[in-house]
């Protein structure tokens, strides 16, 4: 019998171990909305001075390094500034943040009170009631300070559902030395860009780096070429496809020509958003955003990198994408009002210091608020920033917030042309039908 108890003991311990393996919480497991108890290594530790009766809010983010530190410091400062609310900040890996972390968090009822959202995911969350209407939370006069287009990009059913705090625009970065050696002028038109890339491409150097793999960033870089001719993916109200046009065909053919002619690599070692492609001299030109400037100044001071607006087609007009994350408040949180107060304190108050620090010190990005850009005009005109400020900023169009299925379909069209499966016109026609079908299912 003694042996039998021993056996049972071993079996019981094994059961516990198996269950523990399965049920053990991950180090970055998130706190519940409204009753945050962070367990993550990145989570801000609750200070001993925090009172028990404070309202606890969970704030989820996807930034890393200095950017994450900025938000952590912001949260700490807010926690110290008042005694009503205690915010717990957690940051997660960007690759899984919007794909798995946020949806599973909300699905299990353990989503955050405050969170970051990208334009590509905006509609899914807005439609699901997971965004609080922030319209009444704006302090007097502040809403007027925002660029109308930036607020329009976060408006759903006439309500402002998130707060934009950055605008990241795109430009053409190039290696001056390589262009000089090849006797190439900085390209201003599509034809010049293609000819320059052709001249600059060698066995070791790519003429132009643009993203080759499907995904939101792939489309993000391509949209300006469509907009420059007045084209668009959907109608203004987002209910109809406007993809089957000569403008789309032309933009697709132009994009595809760089890959078909071997001027842009079909596979990249580094992300297409990393200026390191240009910094380590494996590319002569690259289309990237404002975020590259700080990296250039920190790591590639010795590389002669220049910046120009995106080249335009004959008869076209300048256009560039203005992307950027937004802050949202969980519309289903019982503490949504308190969460909205923090969002406004951070980027929507008359105190411009946070917005200015974010866009000028932590990273380089424009603020959607005119007064911030005005206040930081000295910094916004420093080095390569001047090109963005003087030559690119005015042509910025907010990144579209198309449904994921539409993003996927547009990516298909781009790849059909890149890999020679279809002409631009055929791809535009094929994908137009697909988008129409997608939209019909979404009603």
């Amino acid at each position, binding site marked *: 019998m003694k042996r039998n108890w021993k056996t049972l003991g071993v079996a019981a311990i094994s059961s516990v171990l*198996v269950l523990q393996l399965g049920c053990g919480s991950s180090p970055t497991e998130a706190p519940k909305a409204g009753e945050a108890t962070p367990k993550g290594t990145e989570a801000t530790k609750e200070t001993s001075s925090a009172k028990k009766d404070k309202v606890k809010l969970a704030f989820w983010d996807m930034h890393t390094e200095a950017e994450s530190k900025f938000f952590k410091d912001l949260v700490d400062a807010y926690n110290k500034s008042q005694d009503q609310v205690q915010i717990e900040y957690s940051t997660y890996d960007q690759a899984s943040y919007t794909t798995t972390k946020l*949806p599973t968090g909300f699905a299990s009822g353990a989503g955050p009170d405050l969170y970051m959202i990208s334009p590509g995911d905006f509609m899914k969350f807005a439609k699901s009631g997971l965004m609080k209407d922030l319209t009444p939370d704006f302090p007097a006069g502040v809403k007027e300070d925002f660029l109308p287009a930036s607020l329009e990009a976060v408006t759903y059913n006439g309500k402002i559902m998130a707060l934009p705090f950055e605008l990241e625009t795109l430009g053409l970065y190039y290696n001056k030395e390589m262009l000089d050696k090849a006797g190439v002028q900085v390209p201003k038109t599509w034809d010049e860009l293609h000819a320059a890339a052709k001249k600059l491409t060698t066995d070791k150097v790519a003429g132009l780096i643009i993203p080759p793999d*499907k995904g939101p960033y792939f489309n993000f870089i391509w949209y300006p070429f469509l907009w420059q001719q007045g084209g668009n993916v959907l109608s203004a109200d987002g209910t109809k496809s406007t993809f089957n046009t000569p403008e789309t065909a032309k933009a697709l053919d132009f994009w595809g020509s760089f890959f078909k002619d071997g001027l842009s*690599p079909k596979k990249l070692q580094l992300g297409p958003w990393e200026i390191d492609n240009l910094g380590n001299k*494996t590319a002569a030109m690259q289309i990237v955003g404002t975020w590259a400037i700080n990296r250039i100044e920190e790591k590639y001071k010795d590389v002669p990198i220049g910046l120009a607006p995106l080249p335009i087609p004959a008869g076209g007009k300048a256009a560039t994408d203005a992307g950027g994350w937004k802050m949202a408040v969980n519309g289903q949180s019982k503490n949504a009002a308190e969460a909205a107060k923090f969002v406004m304190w951070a980027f929507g108050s008359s105190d411009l210091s946070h917005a200015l620090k974010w866009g000028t010190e932590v990273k380089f990005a424009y603020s959607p608020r005119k007064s911030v850009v005005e206040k930081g005009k000295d910094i916004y005109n420093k080095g390569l920033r001047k090109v963005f400020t003087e030559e690119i900023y005015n042509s910025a169009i907010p990144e579209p917030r198309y449904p994921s299925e539409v993003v*996927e379909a547009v990516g298909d069209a781009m*790849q059909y042309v890149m*890999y020679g*499966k279809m002409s631009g016109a055929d791809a535009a026609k094929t994908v137009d039908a697909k988008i129409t079908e997608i939209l019909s299912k979404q009603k």
Partner: protein
Amino acid sequence: MTPRRSNARMIQEWVTAYSFLLPNILGLMIFVFIPILYAFYVSLHDWNALSPKVYVGFQNYVTLISDEQWWHSVTRTLLFSVVYVPLLFCLALLSALLVNGLRGKSVGVVRTMFLLPFAVTSVISAIIVMFLLDPRNGLANQLLSLVGIGKQQFLGSPTQAIFCVILTLLWINIGYNMTIFLSAIKEIPIDYFEAAHIDGATRFQSFRYITFPLLRETNTFILIVTTIASFQIFDHIIVMTKGGPMNSTEVSVLYIFKEAFQMLNMGYSSALAFVLFLIVFAFSMIQLKFFSSKD
């Protein structure tokens, strides 16, 4: 032994046996059977993970019947399996036979070398291969240029990408499967081979009539396990190609992942996952029946 003592002993054995089985039964229930049932339940709903579930009956299953992209991904998965599984099986068996023939101190070193890639994390192994296969600066193209072959796009080519993934998985998994074959070969009594040798059997004949038939159970195990694994291939593809270029490596599990976590179509993706489960289950049953038919 009296019948009473016999009954008591049976109960004791029963308790002991099920005490040991309990952890596995619980594990299977919690992490396999309940999720399968829940996936089926979710598949009957329209659900984006953010809003409440809406019951739609078998609508998701009706939709998937006409979803061309899904069936393309299934075809791609089948093609992947048809190439990968036999290659892995043959190469692992061949390696096991070669290593089994080695004598001396080198055996341990060779075996470790074969098994080493299996110890590398899938993401790291995928990144290593991406560096090797880089079209511009990768070692593979440099080696090819030495024999006069022009630059290849590898992962950037819709026709080559899937084979690059297969090659990577072979590199990772041959060693592990070889070890299983090797231990099974070692179990075969040496007398059989000696008797065959005395009767004048060649090495191939010894393999054909002794080794291979006696490995039947191991063969069945490896074929079923690798077939199931080939249907579940995901991590290497998401790192190496993300399903591209031009969807050429978009296998079923990746398509399900995209539907679930990029499109947030949880109900539909659960229906897809359930159908894939049925396909894999059917394949496994056919294999089991086919390879165990002589028992």
